[in-house]
């Protein structure tokens, strides 16, 4: 680790301690997990930390939900995304999966109108579904990630692991291209059923352990083990 590595807080209480202080600037971080493992919640909490706490410009690209749905969902944790939008700290961009080819263009367009430090794509799996084959998927991801790196933002993308899969993504493509992977999972036999694992994080001495977490009134909160 060198002094030049700049990190930003994740906004998830307890997580930054496990990843040497936060996400590394200019990296692409993937939050992966099966459905309902709180990937979207993770993203919203990351965005809220940036916009509401750090006063950073943030961009939230959703391929799964509508803007209104997101506003409603985050409201239960006390995060006022509508107000952040008004303060021009947040821009929510609805990109339907079939418009996959336009996503990179839309990102560039959005970034022209505001200074963005954090960027969320929830989820890339949704775009992958609209592509014909593995090659197209890899090509799309490569282009997307290259663009994100050029922008110098901290990107958080989500990927949805199919229910019976042991992999980290539906097509096994993005895990090789991202800088960090945080896997959210269920362990039904444990007292705290949700947990996360930092599977990889470049330039970071991260925890090798499994970390249980709960979703409370203020969002995701990691538990001491």
């Amino acid at each position, binding site marked *: 680790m060198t002094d030049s590595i700049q990190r930003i807080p994740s906004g998830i209480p307890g997580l930054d301690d496990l990843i040497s202080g936060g996400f590394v600037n200019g990296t692409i971080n993937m939050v992966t997990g099966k459905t309902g493992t709180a990937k979207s919640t993770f993203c919203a909490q990351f965005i809220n930390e940036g916009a509401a706490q750090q006063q950073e410009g943030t961009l939230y690209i959703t391929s799964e939900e509508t803007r209104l749905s997101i506003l409603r969902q985050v409201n239960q944790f006390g995060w006022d995304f509508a107000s952040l939008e008004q303060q021009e700290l947040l821009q929510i961009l609805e990109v339907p999966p079939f418009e996959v080819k336009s996503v990179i263009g839309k990102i560039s367009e959005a970034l022209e109108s505001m200074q963005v430090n954090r960027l969320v794509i929830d989820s890339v799996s949704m775009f992958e579904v609209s592509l014909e084959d593995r090659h197209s998927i890899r090509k799309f991801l490569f282009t997307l990630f290259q663009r994100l790196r050029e922008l110098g933002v901290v990107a958080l993308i989500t990927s949805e692991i199919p229910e019976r899969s042991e992999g980290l993504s539906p097509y096994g493509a993005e895990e090789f291209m991202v800088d960090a992977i945080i896997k959210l999972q269920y362990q039904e036999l444990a007292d705290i059923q949700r947990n996360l694992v930092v599977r990889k994080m470049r330039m970071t001495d991260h925890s*090798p352990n*499994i970390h*249980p977490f709960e979703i409370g009134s203020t969002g995701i909160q990691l538990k001491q083990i």
Partner: protein
Amino acid sequence: MVFRSYRNPHLSILICCILLMPVAGALSEQLALRQVNGDVQCGNTCITSLKHQDNVTVAITPTDGRLTIQWEDPVGNVIVNTLQLHIVLSPCKRPAVCTQTGSYRIQTWDGSQWHTVTTSAQSMTTNITVTDDLGLDNGYKARVINENAPVVTIDKFALSGDFRRPTKDTETFWDVYENNRVFIHRIGIGMGALFGITLAIILLRKIRLSRSQDTGNTQLSNTLQRHAQLKDEIESVRRELNSVEKARQDLQKQYYRREVDENTFKDMMQKYEQDRKKLQHQLEELREEMRSMVVE
């Protein structure tokens, strides 16, 4: 049991009556004897009197250093022909210093002379023929003479006879006394038997009661024993449950730190979960038994 009967007033009264019956019997026998007997324990001067139901007065005075027994009919209308005199001499309790040894003579006075009737060592009985013309002034006398002793001590004497009713002359004093005695003794025996039976019943009841109390006590002590046992069992199941819970917590920590692999974790967690459910079920059953016991 007898001491417990105070709880039942009827039973206590009955017991008191039964206990008092032989006493009453003995007392009444004593009273019956007193009516016809004279207890004489005397030395130089010894006067006792006894009233027969027909007003016969008996007086005893020492005469000539010897004891004289005298009786008279105050009405002067003696009809009866025969009186019976029974004398029991005081038993010689300490023979070494006893002066009343040797033979005794019992003499009766017929109005003009003494008649020696009989002799005996300890008791004497004689019949005295009484005639009308003997007269009151002389009275009827009897005396007991012991040649070796200046004073004779008479323990008991009895005088019998019917002074008024010649039709009853077949019934002597001794018949009356004997009848009374037998009657009273029978009452005494009857009361004794009654007392015995009552005592037996009481004892039987006491035994039965104490046996039933024993059974009750056994049940109670069984219950207490089971209660204590349950407490122990609950405690031990709870301890087991705690240790399973602790093991579960430890296993989860190990899993989080990746000290156990996923499959081992799953297997063990499932086993602990089964153990926990089994123990909780046991605990619930034991507690239920405890609760039902408390209600009893």
